[in-house]
């Protein structure tokens, strides 16, 4: 398995619109941490939805971990996503009514594969989740609090713990730091990358903020790989 992400001759346009994405070839190697930068409207969200398998490319191929997403049925894509990919979003990452800990444990609830990997570690999912949350700086009492009562920074750390629980091969983060101030942002990224490295998780970090590039193996501008000029019609 050479590539965590491999894109070939990808073309995608929103219904009736211009081409949003036109990527002849792009790949991310296993174990890499990549920062993908582009201004808003450059097709970042569209690319993420293709990587998540929510939308399918009209032409070309998107493969994750050597698995072509277009060859999978909707149900299998859901399963594949749950098993192999952790996500952190800009906001709205947590179920507000569950405790921080329960939010983290959601990761294993829908994925047998992640449960299995947790089991292989010799610890229970709960023990691991508590460890992650502690390392990300949430106290035992904060872990029991409903997510709605946590600060944005704390919420993002809980989301990170969830994305990483069960050691998925790939972590995709979509502007997770946009709501954090710069000190907290840098701390957050450092911790995220540290934990990912321990799990051998490949990281794709999507942002509009170029100043974060220093933390990653590789910094890619979306405009360098995407030949389509237009952006998403939704943006």
């Amino acid at each position, binding site marked *: 398995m050479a590539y965590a992400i491999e894109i070939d001759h990808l073309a995608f346009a929103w219904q009736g619109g211009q081409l949003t994405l036109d990527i002849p070839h792009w790949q991310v190697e296993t174990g890499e941490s990549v920062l993908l930068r582009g201004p808003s409207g450059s097709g970042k*969200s569209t690319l993420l*939805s293709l990587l*998540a398998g*929510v*939308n399918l490319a009209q032409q070309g191929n998107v493969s994750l971990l050597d698995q072509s997403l277009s060859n999978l049925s*909707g*149900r299998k894509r*859901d*399963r594949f*996503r*749950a*098993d192999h990919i952790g*996500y952190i*979003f800009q*906001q*709205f*990452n*947590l*179920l*507000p*009514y*569950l405790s921080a800990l*329960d939010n983290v444990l*959601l*990761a294993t*609830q*829908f*994925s047998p594969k992640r449960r299995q990997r947790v089991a292989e570690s010799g610890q229970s999912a709960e023990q691991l989740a508590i460890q992650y949350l502690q390392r990300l700086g949430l106290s035992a009492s904060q872990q029991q609090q409903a997510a709605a009562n946590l600060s944005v920074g704390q919420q993002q750390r809980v989301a990170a713990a*969830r994305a990483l629980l069960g050691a998925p091969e790939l972590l995709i983060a979509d502007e997770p730091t946009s709501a954090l101030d710069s000190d907290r942002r840098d701390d957050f990224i450092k911790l995220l990358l540290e934990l990912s490295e321990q799990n051998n998780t490949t990281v794709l970090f999507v942002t509009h903020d170029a100043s974060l590039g220093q933390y990653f193996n590789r910094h890619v501008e979306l405009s360098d790989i995407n030949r389509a000029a237009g952006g998403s019609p939704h943006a």
Partner: protein
Amino acid sequence: MLKLAIKSLANRKTSALLTVIAIAVSVALLLAVERVKEQVQANFANTVSGTDLIVGPRSGDVQLLLASVFHIGALNNSMSWQSYERLSQNRQVEWSVPISLGDSVSGMPVVATTAGYFQHFKYANQQPLKLQHGEWFNHSEQAVLGADAAEKLAFNVGDQLIIAHGTGGISFSQHSGHPIDVVGVLKRTGTPVDQSVYVDLETLEDIHSGTPDANADDKSHHSHDEHADHHHPTNAISAALIGLKSRQMALFMQRDINTADGEPLTALMPGQTLQQLWKTLRVFQQALNGISAIVVIIGLLGMLTILLASLRERSREMAVLRAVGAGPGTLFTLLVTEAVLLTIIATASGLALLYILQISLAGVIQQQTGLLFALQWPTAAEWWRMLFVVVAGFLMSLVPAWRAYRQSLADGLTVKV
């Protein structure tokens, strides 16, 4: 999944609670209609047992039954003593008890009869009447009270009561010249017997014919003498309860009496006539059922509205679940689980509400109507109704579940705010 559904609902307690209350009240109503019907029928069915035929003046079966046994309504005519005597001598007849109605004591109906009443009248499962205090009356100027009558009139053995003409609570014609001794109080039966005041047939005859008190001893003396000459204790009675040697003969006897020449009479079989009554009332019963079913559906529609309205604010929740690997099918199941959970909680609360109402109102209902509402485990019909509610709730939940399914497919992992 269940845990998630519960926690998600707990997060929306106010709307969930209101939904539960609305459905619970409607379920209680739906069950109450059935329970009232059931208990009324059971009460009525319990009232007469062991009586094969009731014979009275020509009238409708239902009217005769209601008047003679339940003291509901009145009979316009009476039946002559001669007819009664002829009937009681029929060789099919094992026993017969005459009853005469139309008087009251402070609104409690007076049943003038013979001592045979206590011997032959049975209620529920062939249970005979039993005395709580005192003894049966054995001659005129004595009365035995039903349990409720004794309680309401605050009379006990040894007290004296005055019979009023007519069945109203207030009568201008009090037979005050004829005080009557209470000699016994019956044990509670849960039937109209409890409401009644029992006196000897001759008592009624005496007070109506205006025989002075002083002659009472004389009169009873005479009647002893005249029994051999078929003395009539009264000229007319309201109805007669009849037990046959063989129950199979009831139908023939009934036809014989109904078609006989001479005084026009009506004979009825209590069980059959009750069925006839229920059949008549079925339309109302069904109307009540229909209305309460509609109320339940309105309650469920309220739930549907609340669930649909919540979908918009829950698109975040859906997106998060999708991102952690829950498929659209899982979200569909989640919403159905939620709605079914709500419905089950509501149905259980409705059932609890019904029992609470029954327990708290049983006393009032008994006082007002004489109906004894027995506490019992839900009947099959009630379980079916509850199942109907849960199934209806399930079917309704398919709507928001389908919406969530479609929405989650369209929105994917993004949140449209």
